[in-house]
């Protein structure tokens, strides 16, 4: 493979891994914030236990989201300095705002939320999880402003061969960003809803001790999953209206439309191959659509079933299916992302900069070393992290360490 293909593979693997973890983070953060609000308002012990149990799963998942995100952020400068050189004035601005407005506060307050349990006023502690959740949304928003700019560059002009920002309003009102934000955020809620329902169904099927705990959790998960699936579908539909002509042609698969899109691009940019890998884009799009239908039907039927107490208590085949469905929203997310990002090729900034031209001067050896190092480390960590997530999910709320007082609680001594 050429170095540019390896660089793309490296970015795709880290971004794909990151996407898996942040999708669940966004969904679970919302659910935990809602649970903690209920627990704080009513002082209900079961909701406090639910906050701690789902909160711990959220944190285990969050850690992988951070470390994959770090590697992504640095890769722009490492592998794609052509992109930062050409589009940094616009694209970099969105990334900078993301780190300062969103991630900085999210991380700082998440640490305070985890370690400040029982040390802070309970209203302050509740406010923290809401700030963490809202800054996570803000993070997704600014990242999709950056991504939407790559899909549909707006608010810029080309001066001396580089982009300059000339309309910040247009950049933030980019339909390619806003529609994607709605789609990704509601998709993340689908992931979170199915996850909560699937884990709960496991405990109901195995008839573990925590029946009431998981009946409530199951209902909350399903109550989120159905509306979120509908909203994600609606935004997804809108997304087709903002799609680039070459991606639309790849999706249609029609030889005539593909030839037309290619001819239009040649007329604008001169000779070259301007079509994305058609088979991959189409397959990813079809997988996304099919799984969307599966999730829609399944979440609608489940929504009805959860209204019947005997089903929630004992319909074990349904419980088994709910648990088996946990990976489906993840796969759908990844398929949608491949559809969107591979569909943009061969451009990194559509119509302005090709992926080939965005590549840094990195030697083939350097690229191989980093690809192997990141794959080995992330491959191992992802397996360990998912295993740990499954283990903690299976063990139930009694084994939760989050928010429990540490074994020894000596009197604190002041530093100053």
């Amino acid at each position: 493979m050429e170095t540019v293909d390896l660089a793309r593979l490296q970015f795709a693997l880290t971004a794909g891994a990151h996407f898996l973890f942040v999708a669940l983070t966004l969904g679970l953060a919302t659910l935990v914030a809602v649970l903690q609000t209920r627990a704080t308002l009513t002082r209900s012990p079961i909701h406090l236990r639910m906050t701690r149990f789902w909160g711990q799963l959220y944190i285990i998942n969050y850690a992988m989201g951070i470390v994959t995100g770090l590697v992504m952020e640095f890769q722009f400068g490492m592998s794609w300095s052509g992109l930062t050189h050409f589009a940094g004035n616009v694209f970099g601005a969105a990334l900078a705002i993301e780190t300062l407005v969103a991630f900085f506060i999210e991380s700082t307050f998440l640490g305070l939320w985890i370690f400040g349990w029982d040390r802070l006023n309970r209203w302050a502690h509740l406010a923290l999880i809401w700030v963490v959740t809202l800054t996570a949304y803000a993070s997704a928003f600014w990242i999709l402003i950056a991504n939407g700019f790559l899909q549909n560059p707006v608010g810029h002009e080309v001066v001396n061969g580089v982009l300059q920002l000339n309309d910040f309003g247009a950049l933030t009102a980019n339909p390619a960003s806003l529609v994607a934000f709605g789609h990704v955020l509601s998709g993340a809620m689908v992931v979170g809803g199915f996850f909560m329902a699937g884990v709960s169904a496991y405990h109901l099927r195995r008839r573990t001790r925590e029946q009431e705990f998981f009946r409530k959790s199951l209902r909350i998960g399903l109550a989120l999953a159905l509306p979120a699936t509908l909203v994600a579908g609606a935004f997804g539909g809108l997304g087709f209206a903002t799609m680039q002509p070459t991606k639309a042609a790849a999706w249609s698969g029609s030889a005539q439309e593909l030839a037309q899109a290619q001819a239009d691009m040649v007329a604008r940019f001169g000779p070259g191959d301007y079509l994305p890998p058609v088979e991959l884009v189409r397959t990813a799009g079809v997988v996304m659509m099919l799984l969307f239908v599966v999730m829609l039907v399944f979440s609608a039927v489940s929504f009805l079933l959860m209204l019947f107490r005997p089903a929630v208590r004992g319909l074990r085949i349904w419980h088994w299916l709910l648990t088996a469905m946990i990976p489906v929203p993840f796969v759908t997310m990844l398929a949608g992302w491949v559809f969107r990002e591979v569909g943009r090729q061969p451009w990194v900034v559509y119509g302005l900069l090709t992926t080939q031209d965005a590549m840094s001067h990195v030697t083939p050896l350097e690229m191989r070393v980093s690809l192997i190092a990141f794959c080995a480390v992330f491959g191992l960590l992802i397996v360990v992290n998912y295993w740990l997530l499954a283990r903690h999910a299976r063990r139930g709320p009694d084994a939760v360490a989050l928010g429990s007082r540490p074994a020894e609680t000596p009197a604190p001594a002041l530093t100053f």
Partner: protein
Amino acid sequence: MEIFILGFFALGYLILAGADIGVGMLLPYLGRTAAERRTVIAAIAPFFLGNEVWLVAAAGVLAGLFPLLEGELLSGNYLAVVALLVGWVIRDMGLWLRGRMPGARWQTFWDGAVVGGSWTLALAWGVIFTQILPVPIVAAVMVALLFAMHGLAFAGLRLTGELRERAVRLTGGSGEGRTYALTAAALTALGVLAGADLDLAASAADATTLSLLVPVTLALIPFLVAAQAWVWWTFRARVTGPSYL
């Protein structure tokens, strides 16, 4: 002003995260038993997430305010940056995972990840500094030792009893506050010297981008510092026992 912003976040990272990296490097020295190591980790636990985010912010500032330099610096020091990231990831996952399972072998394994990752991270910083500053590459070890010294001072400020004494013994007496100030000053000097050797003024973003981002960032800084100060204030007491990690 954009240089001030970059310096603010970069130096904030070196001083704050430098301390928890140093503690990670010296974890086997500071904590001899599993229980002691867990207490040493508790000394940095509430801070490390909020500390490392200063570097994420510095990288964001670099991308927004100095896009040319971002590409040059990161692609020009490609393998050192790869080592930095790998060390950082391994160390963080060690911290996050060590307490999530009972069992001595599990915890020893992830403590090893914390130590190895912290050394890799510190040495990678050392290498990056030697590439920017006109010094031989062996000076990278000096930079790593500076991180370790800074970590010892921080451990001295955060721990009590035997653990605190172990930390202050190596820094020459009981003045851990003074040692911390000295190592923080040395890290600041290192950052300022490296910044002076980079062509910051020539690699800044376009004026329109700066006129948007600089005021926004300056307005945000008080809120970001206040959020961090809330963490420092909440966990100002010395630790004597384990935490969530």
